[in-house]
């Protein structure tokens, strides 16, 4: 059974009579739902509305304009900075907040904003890499079937082992299915591009990698397909001649293969989903909602004190 990414309040109540099995069917004549789900209707309406907006020409043009750019990080930073500047403005305008308390609060808001934005640009990449590594180990360690688990553990230690696994999968109809679509599932995403750029920077790149990167950087606008798709075509063609490229491909394919096995493994998919939620909460929420503001407070206090002292000196 597939995991639902979101469990509504009503479902929670429905299933709460049996916590051990979250897939238990709801009781008949359920008092809670009455067959009506108000939240479901609202989201239905929203989905239809967004579908209609997505069909309009200007929106489609905007999407096509944005899709090949790495704007995500900047957008998140922009929203954060904007919200913080609104906070500062509103604090300055506020009539209820005491006048001598306004300045420290505004400085505090600015300090929190500066720290989190700086963190988003520097810390995120570093954390992402380490978390990705841990996630992979976590997923492999929790595969239910011991044979598959061993296979993936071997794959993790040595990405070249994928060739052996693929050969063996030919005899296993279930595995064969999932391994056949690995080529299709591969994506030339920002992570792969970054890794390749790093390799070129370090100077350990072979001729094929250098050629590929120069080809990809020269790619212009593609008609009817994403830039990433064209880059993938080039990557797949160059892969045969380069060990580094094959290793990169194998690594991503392994993650994809784990995803495929999780479709038939309820325990693994539950844990994977839980891990995804907990990861973003525990790490990112902890850093940007807790550590950054707490660290910013004494800094902001000292800055505002200096400003106040200067003002006093100027007045005297």
């Amino acid at each position, binding site marked *: 059974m597939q*995991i639902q*990414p*979101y*469990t509504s*309040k009503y479902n929670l109540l429905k299933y709460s009579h049996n916590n051990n099995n979250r897939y238990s069917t709801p009781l008949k004549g359920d008092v809670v739902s009455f067959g009506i789900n108000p939240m479901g209707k609202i*989201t*239905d309406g*929203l*989905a*239809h509305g*967004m*579908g*209609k907006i*997505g*069909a309009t020409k200007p929106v*489609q043009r905007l*999407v096509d304009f*944005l*899709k090949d750019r790495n704007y*995500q990080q900047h*957008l*998140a930073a922009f*929203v954060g900075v*904007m919200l913080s500047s*609104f*906070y500062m403005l*509103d*604090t300055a305008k*506020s009539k*209820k*907040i*005491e*006048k*001598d*308390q306004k300045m*420290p*609060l505004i400085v*505090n808001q600015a300090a929190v904003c500066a720290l989190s934005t700086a963190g988003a640009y520097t810390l995120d990449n570093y954390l992402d890499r380490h978390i990705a590594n841990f996630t992979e*180990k976590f997923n492999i*360690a*929790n595969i239910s*079937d*011991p*044979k598959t688990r061993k296979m993936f*553990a*071997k794959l993790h*230690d040595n990405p070249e082992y994928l060739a052996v696994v693929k050969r063996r999968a030919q005899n296993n109809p279930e595995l064969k299915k999932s391994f056949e679509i690995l080529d299709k599932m591969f994506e030339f995403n920002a992570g792969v591009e970054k890794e390749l750029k790093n390799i070129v920077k370090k100077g350990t790149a072979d001729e094929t990698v250098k050629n590929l990167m120069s080809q990809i950087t020269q790619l212009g606008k593609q008609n009817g*397909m994403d830039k990433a798709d064209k880059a993938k075509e080039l990557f797949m063609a160059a892969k045969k001649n380069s060990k580094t490229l094959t290793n990169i491909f194998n690594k991503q394919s392994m993650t994809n293969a784990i995803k495929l096995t999780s479709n038939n493994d309820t*325990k693994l998919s*539950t*844990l994977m989903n*839980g891990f995804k*939620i*907990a990861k973003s*909460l525990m790490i990112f929420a902890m850093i940007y*909602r*807790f550590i950054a503001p*707490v660290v910013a*407070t004494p800094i902001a*206090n000292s800055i505002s004190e200096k400003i106040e002292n200067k003002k006093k000196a100027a007045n005297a």
Partner: protein
Amino acid sequence: MIKLQTNQTPVAGIMRSKREAALGSEMSSVATSPKNHFELEHSAFKVCSDKNHYDVYDHAVIKKTNSVNKFNKKTASNVNFRGLPIMKTKTWKLAQSNLLHKFLKMADSNQTVFDALFALLITCGLRPAAIMAQANEHNKEKNKKAASHSISSGIIGYIFAVIIYSPIKKGLDKIRKNPEIYAEKAKDFFTYNGTKKMAASKRFQTYTMMCNYIPQVITASVRSAITIAMIPYIDKYILNKIFGSNIKPTTKAELQNDPTYKFAFINFKNNNSNAKKVFQSFTGVMK
């Protein structure tokens, strides 16, 4: 009486008691000599290392038993994998810990509740507490403002997430799963005329990002206005009661007796100038 399922797991292969051993004579008639006892324990630990796979494992029971099923001894889960370097890492052990599993299962089954509770716990509990812990006589009022900002932004953020952001997310999820129902006209655009799946389509990923961020941009000014407006009230009703206020009550009492303050609202003539002065002396600017 527990019936044995001989062919399924190695645990089942190891008899629970002598009596059962006698009953299941056909499959487990081999009684271990003292020499074999070590072997039994050894294999038992191998099984034990695979805790995830078997929910119940009582190795105290297995220590007592002295019979083993040799036919079932080598099953897939009983093979020794200890040679692989990844399995020796601390991460591997942590990943298989039951405590972590329990926590993650909770996170998976109650996603929204978990999400909201954690965010509220941080913004309304941990963060104000940590900020107030740094406070001394000198900067108490400043830290109190920072703490009440944290609480009010947490509450408002939660309300906005429940009312606006999370329904939009769910709506987008619905489009992704059933584009033919929710986005009839846009479907061809998102799937590149059916050549790509919704989840892999860059166009849809971009659209998702836009739909998630644009409401945040639009609501930012309202959100901030409510958040800042709530700060004085949180100060007054929550933080002042816990941590006390530095503003001396005597000043307030004096002001109450001051006729200009008391009747400022009916004194239309000099209302503006007087009220301003009173407000300033009240807030401590005119020290």
